[in-house]
């Protein structure tokens, strides 16, 4: 079962197959997040008073989370850097730093959300909060998926197998980071 | 079209004209293409000793067989676009001034109509509200204010060639001028739940005297 088909090793485009597929995954994710954020923007323009609701979000928590994700992005690119030089121990170490970054992100998110829910700003409070939780929730689910895949890959890396996959998960992780870079001003900063 | 279903509004004939125009233009291409298709199937059926020709379709004199129909279709399309948008503009976009206004409210699963009373003003005490029955005067230009109370409905009067969805939270304005008296169907054209297929209204077009008589009866 584990023998790789010859098809996978071919590369007519000059991009390795795995990376090409990841680009297409990201392409399809762009339209998913793009569609959601387009809806949000349309209604945000219709309802200027959403700014009052947005004022209740914690810019500080959002900023810290941006920092955490940017830093984890740095770690994953360093992991890729190490993997390319076959320094698998370093790559493993950086991957787990990245996962730690993801965990920190989720923890901050959890505190932030529980505080907001305790304040009465639940997903049904009004439409702004619905979008807030939905957009951030879909993003958080991507963070979780990325962490799981990264954990699986990290053990492969430790056994010096599938080192190119570090780059693939890295690209995905950067994309998740970029989504957050846009969510942060949309949901937190714009009042 | 008017052979299948009556025309009872001022713009019904315009819509039928567009339909006829498309039927002629598109029908021409349709029959031409089908005729060529079947002729080719017949003409170039397999015969002993006759080998197929080698045509790449990349030389100029071959491509003209694509280019000419292509350009002609663009012309036909432009003609259709022009007339379609003109009719659309007259019916949906640019409303003539109203002589009277009726309110149409869609509900699961009935139509409610609010007619102006004898004072011809909507929103006064003598308004007449009915369910599943719309009464209008022939020859009078009406605006209708279309609303929905729950889900999407679509106010459709086939004899008027008129259709407009009702969306909860929104009010749509449209117009019609009845041109002949009679009793016709009003249908709901947007899936609105279990009773959608049974959501039927009646449209009564009558002359002014009969309409006023009906209003007077309702008032007492």
């Amino acid at each position, binding site marked *: 079962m584990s023998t790789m088909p010859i098809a996978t090793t071919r590369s007519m485009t000059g991009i390795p197959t795995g990376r090409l597929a990841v680009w297409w995954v990201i392409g399809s994710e762009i339209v998913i997040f793009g569609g959601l954020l387009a809806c949000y923007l349309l209604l945000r323009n219709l309802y200027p008073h959403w700014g009052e609701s947005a004022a209740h979000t914690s810019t500080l928590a959002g900023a810290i989370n941006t920092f955490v994700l940017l830093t984890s992005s740095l770690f994953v690119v360093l992991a890729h850097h190490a993997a390319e030089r076959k320094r698998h121990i370093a790559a493993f170490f950086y991957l787990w730093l990245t996962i730690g970054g993801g965990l920190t992100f989720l923890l901050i998110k959890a505190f932030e959300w529980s505080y907001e829910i305790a304040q009465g700003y639940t997903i049904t409070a009004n439409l702004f909060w619905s979008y807030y939780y939905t957009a951030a929730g879909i993003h958080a689910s991507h963070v979780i998926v990325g962490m799981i895949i990264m954990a699986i890959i990290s053990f492969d890396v430790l056994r010096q197998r599938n080192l190119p996959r570090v780059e693939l998960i890295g690209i995905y992780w950067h994309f998740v980071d970029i989504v957050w870079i846009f969510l942060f001003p949309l949901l937190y900063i714009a009042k | 079209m008017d052979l299948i279903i009556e025309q009872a509004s001022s713009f019904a004939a315009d819509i039928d004209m567009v339909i006829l125009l498309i039927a002629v233009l598109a029908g021409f291409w349709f029959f031409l293409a089908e005729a060529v298709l079947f002729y080719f199937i017949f003409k170039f059926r397999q015969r002993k000793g006759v080998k197929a020709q080698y045509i790449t379709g990349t030389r100029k004199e071959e491509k003209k067989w694509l280019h000419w129909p292509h350009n002609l279709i663009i012309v036909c399309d432009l003609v259709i676009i022009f007339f379609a948008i003109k009719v659309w503009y007259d019916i949906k976009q640019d409303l003539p001034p109203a002589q009277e206004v009726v309110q149409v*409210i869609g*509900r*699961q*699963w*009935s139509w*409610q109509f609010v007619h102006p009373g004898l004072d011809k003003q909507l929103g006064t005490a003598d308004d007449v*509200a*009915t*369910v*599943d029955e719309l009464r209008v005067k022939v020859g009078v230009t009406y605006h209708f204010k279309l609303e929905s*109370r729950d889900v999407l409905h679509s106010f459709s009067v086939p004899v008027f060639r008129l259709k407009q969805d009702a969306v909860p939270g929104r009010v749509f304005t449209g117009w019609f001028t009845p041109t002949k008296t009679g009793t016709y169907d009003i249908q709901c054209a947007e899936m609105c739940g*279990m*009773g959608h297929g*049974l*959501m*039927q209204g009646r449209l009564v077009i009558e002359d002014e005297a009969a309409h006023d008589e009906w209003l007077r009866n309702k008032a007492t």
Partner: protein
Amino acid sequence: MLRLYVVVALSFSLPVVASPRQGKQTYAFCAVCHGERGEGNHTVGAPQIAGMEEWYVREQLLKFQQGVRGTHPEDIAGMRMRPMARYLQNTAQIEAVSAYVAALPTLKSTSTLKGSWVKGEVHYKLCIACHGADGKGNSQLKAPALVGRSDWYLLTQMRNYKAGVRGNDPKRDPVGMTMRPITMTLDEQAMIDVVAYISGLR
């Protein structure tokens, strides 16, 4: 063409006569809102109908069909019922479904309103003449049983009578007309109380 129609129609359809089987089949239409056991569904405004008297079901269906009920703009649930009733096209279907509903075992209605049972008993004196002290109704007087009906439904109908939404057509609904003056004497709280009293009747 016509012959084909007849042949196919015969092979796929059953003769149209009232039968228990037809009642059950027809009731499948009703069950979507009123429930398999006739228990009703408050969210869609469908009252509990299990065990309703056969004559009453038949009359109300006919009233819905003829537009005596369910044509007032304020009667939202009635307007949902009307197209459904109109779909029953022959008397056999109406007979069958009325019998089926009447044969459904009566259910205890759950109470959704808080009213004073004691005050309700006072007001209920108005109702006794027709609906009986036990609330079992009187078919001679065309007064339906009140026990076993949903309390929110009873309240809505009393409000409807009072506001002229139901029973304001002297020609086609003389029976409904008799309810109107009685409900006129009750205010909102009194109606809730009397419904509470009815819910307590066995």
